[in-house]
């Protein structure tokens, strides 16, 4: 034995592990082991932990790489099926035009509402009336708001009066957005819609059937809020890790380690918002478990992706995460 685990730690699986050995030792310790020869070994679990500082944006940008490949392949298949180039191009243009129109319409509507609200707020704000004779003596006996008002209102000149008249005229005139303003809002809307669509694209690219959004309440253990959300799904196995032994320096505070493992028959996307203490960030983890044939035991065993697929996937896409394989036998 080369070491002893800290007290209370008994592994990540459901069983209370008493010894940890290397994967290579499996074939030597277990007669008839097929770990190395059998590609689709069940009970192999992939544990992934997000690196510190790994942000949602970084993960999404990494996930966009496979999406581009999927899109390219889709177009290649269309060409292979006989689609003409102009049909594919027109389809892509239509898709983007619809997105742009949707975003522009929404942005114009929001812009009009914002203008009206701003106009009402401006009308309800009392104008600063000051007609006193200001003499700048360089001394102010009552510093504060009064001094600021005096300085802001002075000098009582023709210019300030004309500004007041212009403001009154503006209040009486119905506000009609100018074309330049509409164009500005439309451009902003197009940009925002494209940005939103890029964020949604990875979910479309991956065969994710369900998305779980969890926002743990402040002051409660995050997994307490996560549990009922997952209970609605057909999760075969769940691992909630309270990690009482986590170091306080790891992720802000003990017992709040952003580590979540979900094994499901179907791919899911799990989002936990604001899990990390002291930082509002979104952590994402994609469970890609699948079931192979009949469950091995009463409650069912979900096998993680086979080892070759896992290693290929993580290496090919360079995911920003540490990964480890664990074989519970």
């Amino acid at each position, binding site marked *: 034995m*080369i070491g*002893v685990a800290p007290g209370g730690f008994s592994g990540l699986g459901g069983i209370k592990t008493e010894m940890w050995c290397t994967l290579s030792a499996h074939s030597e310790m277990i007669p008839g082991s097929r770990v190395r020869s059998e590609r689709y070994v069940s009970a192999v679990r992939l544990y992934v932990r997000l690196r510190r500082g790994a942000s949602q944006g970084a993960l999404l940008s990494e996930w966009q790489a496979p999406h581009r490949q999927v899109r390219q392949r889709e177009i290649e298949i269309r060409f292979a099926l006989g689609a003409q180039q102009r049909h594919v191009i027109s389809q892509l243009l239509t898709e983007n035009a619809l997105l742009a129109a949707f975003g522009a319409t929404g942005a114009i509507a929001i812009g009009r509402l914002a203008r009206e609200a701003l106009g009402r707020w401006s009308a309800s704000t009392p104008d600063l009336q000051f007609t006193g004779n200001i003499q700048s003596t360089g001394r102010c006996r009552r510093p504060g708001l009064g001094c600021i008002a005096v300085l802001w209102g002075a000098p009582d000149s023709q210019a300030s009066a004309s500004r007041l008249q212009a403001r009154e005229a503006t209040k009486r005139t119905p506000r009609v957005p100018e074309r330049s303003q509409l164009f500005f809002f439309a451009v902003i809307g197009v940009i925002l819609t494209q940005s939103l669509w890029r964020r949604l694209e990875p979910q479309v690219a991956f065969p994710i059937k369900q998305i779980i959004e969890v926002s743990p309440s402040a002051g409660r253990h995050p997994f307490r809020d996560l549990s009922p959300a997952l209970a609605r799904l057909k999760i075969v196995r769940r691992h909630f890790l309270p990690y009482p032994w986590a170091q306080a320096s790891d992720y802000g505070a003990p017992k709040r380690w952003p580590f979540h493992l979900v094994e499901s028959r179907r791919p899911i996307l799990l989002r936990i918002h604001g899990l990390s203490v002291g930082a509002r960030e979104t952590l994402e983890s994609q469970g890609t478990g699948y079931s192979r044939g009949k469950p091995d035991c*009463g*409650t069912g065993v979900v096998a993680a992706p086979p080892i070759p697929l896992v290693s290929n996937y993580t290496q090919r896409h360079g995911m920003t995460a540490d990964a480890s394989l664990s074989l*519970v036998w």
Partner: protein
Amino acid sequence: MPADFVIDSPSGQPVAISFVSGNYFPVIGITPFAGRFLNPDDGKGDAPLSCVASDRFWRERFGNAPFQAGRHIVWNGRSVA
């Protein structure tokens, strides 16, 4: 637990073993109570079989004896350090 497997050790007492990759413990990020954890170099080539015991396992099998690196257990005729 029904979904996992417990191996009967030669001595007759069941022992739950997890076979893990070398970066299992670094990913979890915990520190060993005594000795060291497995690392990616363990299990490569002719390296001896190594294992890490849980705190409970150590106390039940070795009492309150202080940890000594290199204690061996025999498993199916193989020595595991």
